[in-house]
C-alpha cells in the first residue's frame, strides 16, 4: 500500500510517503505527487516509512525533482528509510538527487 500523508515538522509542511513505491503504485504516486507539486512547487518528501523502492519509484522521484526545478521550485528528500538507501546505493543515484542521507547509528 502506498500512501501520502501531510505532516507538519517545525512549522514546515512535509509529505510523508509510506508503503511500497514500486511499479504497482508508480502511476498513482506520480499522479498524486504531481497534484501536490502544482500547489507547492517546493516539496519536502519524508521517506522514512517507505518499505520498498524499485526502479520505477526512483524514476518517479527523479521526474518529480526535475518537474519541481522546471517550476522554479525544489524537491528535497529527507529521512531515507533503509529500503530507500539500499536502492539508491545499488543504482548509484544518491548523487543525482543530491540530498544528504543520514545514516542511523544502527
Amino acid at each position, binding site marked *: 500500500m502506498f500512501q501520502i500523508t501531510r505532516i507538519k515538522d517545525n512549522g514546515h509542511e512535509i509529505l510523508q510517503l509510506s508503503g511500497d513505491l514500486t511499479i504497482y503504485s*508508480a502511476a498513482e504516486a506520480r499522479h498524486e505527487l504531481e497534484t501536490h507539486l502544482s500547489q507547492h512547487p517546493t516539496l519536502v518528501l519524508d521517506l522514512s516509512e517507505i518499505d520498498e523502492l524499485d526502479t520505477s519509484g526512483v524514476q518517479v522521484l527523479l521526474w518529480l525533482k526535475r518537474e519541481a526545478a522546471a517550476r522554479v521550485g525544489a524537491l528535497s528528500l529527507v529521512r531515507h528509510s533503509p529500503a530507500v538507501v539500499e536502492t539508491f546505493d545499488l543504482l*548509484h*543515484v544518491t548523487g543525482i538527487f543530491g540530498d544528504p542521507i543520514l545514516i542511523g547509528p544502527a
Partner: protein
Amino acid sequence: MDLDQAKQTFIIEAHELLDAMEESLLAPESSEAVNAMFRAVHTIKGSAGLFGLDPIVRFAHTVESVMDRVRAGSLAFDPDLVNLILACHDHLAQQISELQEGDDAGSPETIAEGDALLARLLPYLETVPRPAAPPTTLVTHESHPHEEEDDQPCWHISIRFGPDILRQGMDPLSFLRYLQTLGSITHLTPLLDRLPAGPDFDPERCYLGLEIDLDTKVERQVIEDVFEFVREDSQIRIIPPRSKVEEYIQLIRELPEGDHYLGEILVKGKCLTPKDLEEALGTQRQEAFEDGTVQGRMLGTIVIQDQAVPPAVVAAALDKQKKAKEKTGHEVKVVKVQAEKLDRLVDLVGELVIAGATANTLAAQGTDSRVLEATAILGKLVEEIRDNALSLRMVQIGETFSRFRRIVRDVGQELGKPIELEIRGAETELDKSIVEKLSDPLMHVVRNSIDHGIESQEVRRARGKPATGSLSLNAFHESGSIVIEVADDGGGLNKQRILAKAVERGLVQDPSSLTDQDITNLIFEPGFSTADAVSNLSGRGVGMDVVKRNIDELRGTIEVETYEGAGTTLRFRLPLTLAIIDGFRVGVEDTFYVIPLDMVIECLDLGPFLESEQNHLINLRGEVLPFLRLREVFETRGAVPARERVVVVQFGELRAGIVVDRLMGEFQTVIKPLGELFRSVKGLGGSTILGSGEVALILDVPQLIQLAVTRKHALQPRLSTVS
C-alpha cells in the same frame, strides 16, 4: 500489467533445462554432458536470482559448485555422485513445481530435503569456497583490496533497458543484485537522460540505462545469461577486460548519449585512458573536418590505420559479433505458445471444416459455376489450414521416450538388474494430446518389462544370455497410425502359467478352445497378475487392464508378441490425431457412416464374390477375406439393394470387408465424441456433422475388423464338421 509472465517463462525454461540435465546425467561420460549439466544448473540459478528465489539460488549454487569441480576434472563423476546429482535434480524440479503452484518459499518437507542434500553435497565441495560467488551475500558488497582493483581491468557492461521491462515484472535492481554475486561492481553510472519531462513521463516505463564495470572471473556467457530475460528489448553491450580501444569507442558511438559523457564514464572505469579517448575522438573530429562531411571515417578504420590494432583482430571481432547476432536470430525461430491457445485454434479449424463442407454442399446444389469454383478453392485452403494447424500440435515422441532412461536405470538398479535402453524412432511425431495420455500406459508397460520380463542376472547367465538385459522403445508410422513398440529380451510370457491363473480366477471356462493369441490377451483382463511376488513396482493387480483401457480411450490397440525364453514385444497402435480425419463416406439405407480414409484399401462390388455368403468370407483375388454387413451389425431395417458394395479396410496386419449400400466419396471429418448412451455400442468411434447438417457415424474400424475375424473363427469349427 502481467507481472507473472516472465516467471512463467522461467518455470517453463527451468523444466526444459532440468529435462536436458537429466538426459545428460544418464550418459555422463562425455565432457559435453558435464558441461550441459553445469550450464543447466547455472542458468536456473541465474534466472532464479532475478526473481529473488533465494532457496533455489542457494541450492543450485552448491550443485553448480560441485559440477564445476567435475567439469574442471578435480572430481570424479562416479556412480555415487551421479546418483546424488540426480537426487539434486529431482529436488530442483520439486522446487520449481512448488513455485509453479504459487508457493515461492517452498514446503517444509522440500526445505528439509534440500538441507539434507546440501549436507550430502558438502564433502564434494572444495574446502575453500569459490571466491567469485558466495551464495548468501546477495546484497552485501564484497570489499576487494584496492590495489587489485587497479590491476584487474574490468568487464564493461553497457545496458539501456527496454521500455517495458518494469511492466513485465523485472527490475534492474535485481540484475544489479545478481551481478554482485558474480563479482564486484567497481563502477556504476546510472543514465536517466531519457527520462522525459512533463506529461510525457510514463511512470511504468523504464528509462534507465546503466554503465557498469564488473570485476569478475566468470565467463562471458555467464554475464550474458544474467540479462537473458531482457535481452530482446534492451540494448546490451558487454566488453571483456583488456579489449581493444576501438570496442569502447564504438560503444561510445553507438549509444545515444553524448560522446564525451560516455567517454568519461569509461575513463573513470579505467577502460580507457584519457589519452585514448582524446585521440580517438579527436581524430574523428579532424577527419570530419577535412572531408567536409559530418560522418567522417568509421572509428574502427581510424584505429586500424593508426596501427593500433592489426586488421585481422578487428575482422575477427566483427565476425564474432555477426555470429552472436545470428545466434539470437536462430533462437527467435521458436515461439512458445500456450497449449490452450493451440487447442482453441484446432477447435476453430474443426468448425471451419464443417462450415466449409456446408458451403460445398450448398454450392453443389446451385448452378453457378463461379460459386462452385470459389468453394473449391476455399475447400483446398481449409484443408491446408487444417493440416498446418494439426501439425502444430505434433510433437516428437523422443522427449517422452528419453524420460524412460531414468526410470529404466532407477528401477533396474533397485532390482539389481543392469538394463540397457535402446531408443529408436525418437523423431516420430504424433499429436501432443496423445503423447500426454500415452505416458502412463507406457510407464506401466516398461516397468512390467523390467520387473517381470527381464530375468535376474543369474537366470540370464544360466540361460546363456548376456547379463545386461535389453529393453527397446521404438516408434514409427504405419498406414495412418503410429506404432510404438516396447520390446524386452526377457523370459517372455509363460502361457501355461497365464492359463492356469485364468482358470483359477474363473476367467476362462474351456481352456482348450483358446488360441495362443487368446491366451496372451488374457493379461489384459481386469485383476490379472501372474507375478509370484508383489514388488513395490508392479504386480499389484492393477495392471494391463488399465493400460488397455487407456489405449482404448485413444482409439488405439495393443498387440502382444511373445516368445518364451526370448522376450516380449508389446505393440501399441494409435491414431495420429484425435481431432480431425480424412474420412470415406458410405451409406446404408438413410444413415451415413464415415470410415477413416487411411484404413481404406479398395472398394468393390460385392456381386461376384457371393460364393461363401454363409460363412461371411469373400475371395479377393485368391485371398480369403472375412466381411460383415453394416446393415446386420447395426440392425438396419429395409430391403437389401440389388448391388451391394464392399469397402476393404486394413488395420495393422488384419483386413476385412465392410458391406454397405452406397459409396459416397472422400470427406473431411471433425470427430465429435459420442454420448454416454452409445458407449456400449461396438463398432462406432464417434460422430460428425455433415455439410447438410445431418449426423454421420464414424466407424471404429479396428473393432469391426475384430468382429469380422472372430466371427470367422466362430464359424470355422462348424464348417469343418459340415464338410
